[in-house]
């Protein structure tokens, strides 16, 4: 059985003036999966998501969302997509309940009051239901946004950094919720800058200034990067770190508490460099597998791994 794709676009492009922000992107997200959307600031994640739900008109490319043409049938797409914007964008001068009621009515829900009531309970918003949305704290605003965008039981969720500024407990609740929804068949494309969240996704897509340069499960992405990593522990690892940074064989050096990860693509050259530090200053070296962050930082510093 071939998987059906909730999102299937090819050669998607978007320009703002002379600036090509999304450049020939091919994207396939199978139904019922959670895909993480990663990439440095300004790489075009938000723009891509907006293209998918018809908020922006693509300059090139074709594709479908839930089987509907993204150019011609954006109204049908909107009926079944829940889009959570990066910045809180519900009405701050309406109460939590009024915001949800508005959404319920716009989507034409059969029992708007009951649906809203159920959603308020599910997200723990009941006690705050009469509070103006603008007076909620950041984390509660995020919850309201999520509640609002799944209120109409969409088939596809497009979440743009939904957990920015949310505390760990709320973040965990949030991901539990997402996984629960995905198990019921909902497809999710979620952009994030958190590595632990990327690891909670079925697959990730790494967008680098308009181009997708890595795609697949976390282990696939790490393996495909061809990156080799050593970890160093010891008294003066930070001093060594600065020296290592200038070495051409070393692609990235990143501290993780008392441990420093040193990565490079050329394994032999990297070993030679490390060899010269082996006996010095009592540092212990060991081979390790690169983390997702190592890979991403490597991509960021090396023009997407293409030089």
């Amino acid at each position, binding site marked *: 059985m071939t998987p059906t794709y909730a999102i299937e676009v090819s050669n998607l492009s978007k320009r703002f003036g002379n600036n090509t922000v999304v450049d020939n992107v091919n994207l396939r997200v199978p139904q019922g999966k959670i895909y993480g959307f990663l990439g440095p600031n300004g790489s075009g994640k938000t723009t891509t998501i907006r293209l998918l739900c018809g*908020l922006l008109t693509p300059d090139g490319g074709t594709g479908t969302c839930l089987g509907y043409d993204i150019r011609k049938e954006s109204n049908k797409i909107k009926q079944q997509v829940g889009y959570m914007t990066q910045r809180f964008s519900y009405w701050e001068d309406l109460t939590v309940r009024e915001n949800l009621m508005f959404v319920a009515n716009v989507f034409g829900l059969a029992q708007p009051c009951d649906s809203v009531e159920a959603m308020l309970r599910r997200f723990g918003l009941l006690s705050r239901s009469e509070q103006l949305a603008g007076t909620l704290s950041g984390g509660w605003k995020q919850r309201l946004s999520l509640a609002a965008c799944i209120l109409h039981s969409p088939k596809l969720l497009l979440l743009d950094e939904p957990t920015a500024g949310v505390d760990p407990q709320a973040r965990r609740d949030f991901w539990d919720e997402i996984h629960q929804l995905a198990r019921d068949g909902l497809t999710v494309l979620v952009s994030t800058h958190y590595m632990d969240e990327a690891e909670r996704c079925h697959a990730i897509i790494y967008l680098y200034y308009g181009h997708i340069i890595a795609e697949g499960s976390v282990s696939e992405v790490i393996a495909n990067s061809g990156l080799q990593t050593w970890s160093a522990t010891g008294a003066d690892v930070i001093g060594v770190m600065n020296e290592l940074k200038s070495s051409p064989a070393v692609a990235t050096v990143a501290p993780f508490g008392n441990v420093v990860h040193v990565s490079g693509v050329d394994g032999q050259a990297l070993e030679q460099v490390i060899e010269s530090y082996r006996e010095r200053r009592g540092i212990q070296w060991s081979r390790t597998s690169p983390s997702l962050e190592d890979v991403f930082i490597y991509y960021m510093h090396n023009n997407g791994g293409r030089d």
Partner: protein
Amino acid sequence: MFRRFLAILIKELTQLRRDKSTFAMVLAIPVMQVFLFTYAINNDPKHLPTAVLIRDNSIVVRDLTAAMTNSEYFDLTTRISTDAEGDELLQKGEVYFVLTIPENFTRDLLSGRKPALLLQADASDPSATANSIGAMSEVILRSIRRDLTGSVRSMVNTEMPIDLRIQRCYNPEAMIRYNIVPGLIAVLLTLMGIMMTALSLTRENERGTMETMLSMPVRPLEIMAGKIVPNLIVGLIQAAFILIMAIFFFKVPFLGSWWVFVLSIILFITGNLAIGYTISSLAKNQLQALQMTILVFMPSLLLSGFIYPFVGMPGWAQAIGNCIPVTYFMRIVRGIMLKGNGLAECWPHIWPMGIIILILSIIAVKVYKKTLD
């Protein structure tokens, strides 16, 4: 379709209700404007220049004119000898009143035949002349009582010995103050209508809520209707507010057809909202929207015949004035309130206004952005 419109309408009304400062502005600006415009111009209702046409010279008449002067309401500035002179002075606005004392006035008075006394008043300024007119009977009565004796005197005690006829005259294009209040309705509706619509949409753009709105299955026409209806209600409340002040405080008459008035007002407000809508599609933020509002408002204020009489403007200014709805609405409102016009008289102004508003609405729908591009 209707439910989505209703959802937006409820949302707008709730937001409007919470927006105290806008709400205050909606009511405060009309009050302020009406009082400023009317009181600032209307300084001293006493000592109004008056021309007299005396066709019967007698002691009674001389006492009567002296009594008028003493009352301080009238300044008998000019003596004229023909009716035409009086008309001319009134038209030019050099006098507020023309008093005509007919031939045989004294004789008729003494024989109890109640002679007619004609007081022509410049009706373009009722708030200035009202007090004087009110005082007139009393002035006459007191002056005549003093002069008369005997049987005639007893008659004076029981009833008015003369027939005081007050005639209000005005020249439609030249009446300044009378015109201000109906004109204010037009100007205020223009300003508030354009501004409130323009701001309410750009505010959604600025706060990012437009993105949420556009990501939901709402049609542009539903958003437009949902935004326009609350502003229409606000506009009608403002119009009613100004009218009440005009009629009760400033004694501006309302002579014409009410339903033509209400229909034209609804049409006119819709036109302003279409302009506001167009502005909000073009403006990037609220400041720009305000600047554009003022840009559009200036010709409405200056070229519509509100401040300068339309017929006196140069050709190019009239051409511009003919393209803006407020010019037509100004004539409709003034015609209805001051001249007692009905549909037949208003129609030549209603249809061009309707066409302009239709064009404006089409532009508004066309430039409306369905995406964030």
